[in-house]
């Protein structure tokens, strides 16, 4: 077809893949989506001591159109679930979801009628960070693992998740 048939197999596309993954993983912009006490730790992670700006993600976007990572920080109530889904749908591709804290991951200790028992009932989750709330290092650990995951994605996987 085009240029890639002239080159040895895999050279152009793998390098393009690596470049795309590098640019995607090193400037994740989180959407502002603090729901409970985990949001306090998320803000601490953005503060001077833990400083998420070191990883190119200090801008918490108030508009989901400009964000590509949703940090679900806190318990998701049944009333909040449709809002969360709408915000997720409004985010532009490619987008990732990080479930921060046990409440977002599974409902945690609040196993009752008011809470969604795991945010993956509502949106697909790419990384789970346990803890109640996770300390900022745990959140950064989850984000770094997510970055490693993004950096290893192939185009085929990216097409499948879109």
């Amino acid at each position, binding site marked *: 077809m085009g240029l890639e048939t002239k080159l040895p197999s895999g050279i152009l596309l793998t390098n393009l893949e690596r470049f795309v993954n590098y640019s995607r993983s090193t400037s994740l912009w989180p959407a502002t989506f603090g729901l409970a006490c985990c949001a306090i730790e998320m803000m601490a992670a953005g503060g*001077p*001591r*833990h*400083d998420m700006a*070191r990883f190119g993600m200090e801008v918490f976007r108030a508009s989901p159109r400009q964000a590509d990572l949703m940090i679900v920080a806190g318990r998701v109530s049944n009333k909040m679930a449709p809002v969360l889904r709408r915000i997720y749908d409004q985010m532009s591709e490619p987008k990732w979801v990080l479930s921060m804290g*046990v409440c977002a*991951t*599974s*409902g*945690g*200790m609040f*196993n009752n009628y008011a809470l969604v028992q*795991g945010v*993956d009932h509502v949106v697909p989750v*790419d*990384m*789970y*960070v*346990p*803890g*109640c709330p*996770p*300390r900022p*290092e*745990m959140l*950064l*650990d*989850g984000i*770094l*693992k*997510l970055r490693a*995951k993004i950096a290893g994605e192939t185009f085929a996987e990216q097409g499948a998740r879109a």
Partner: protein
Amino acid sequence: MDLGLPPAIVTLLTFAVIGVLLWLFLTRTVLGRGFSVPLRYMLRKPETAQYPEEPRPVTPRFHGRHQLNRYPDGLERCIGCELCAWACPADAIYVQGADNTLERRYSPGERFAEDYQINYNRCILCGLCIEACPTRALTMTHDYEIAADSRQALIWTKDQLLTPVPEGAYDTPHTDREVRDRGLNYYGGLAVTPPTLHGGRFRPAAAAPSARAGQVVPTGAPPSTDLAAGGDH
């Protein structure tokens, strides 16, 4: 303005006046004291912790992930009593006990944990399980980097939680004969007795012939005399 002074002196005087005015501005006026804050902080070391490369140490009693401990001879401390699972406010612990047999002994005592799982999807790292544990089998480590990309990976099983076999020991199961030949006293001693029992005075478990794990039966005078003297409390 000609003061009839040498130019070097005039220059020095000018700088001195500027310096005094600046010092007065930064220390005496409201606006200047505000400006002096960022100036001071410019000279300080950055507060930022370089997390993945040089993590700062956590406090000594930090609640990290759990660990199932062993005795120095390799036997597991957990006796499968499920008190941790009962204490857990989030229902994150699953214990399945089983009987020790003469050929396969995992822990001192009657029973051991055949299966032990902690669900870190639900665990809130509160430490109530640690307080409930009668044999100090379950403790918490300083390890907190346990994020994973699936819910299955966050359910830790017994082989992940169990601490490595100590130096010179070997893995469970042991036979009952080996354990008896070693002749260790597993339950007697400070490890299982709360220091608040008997008015803060510890009585060794060996002194009481009917002592059981975690329970010391007083044999001498009742401790009420100590309380009347105002010793404890």
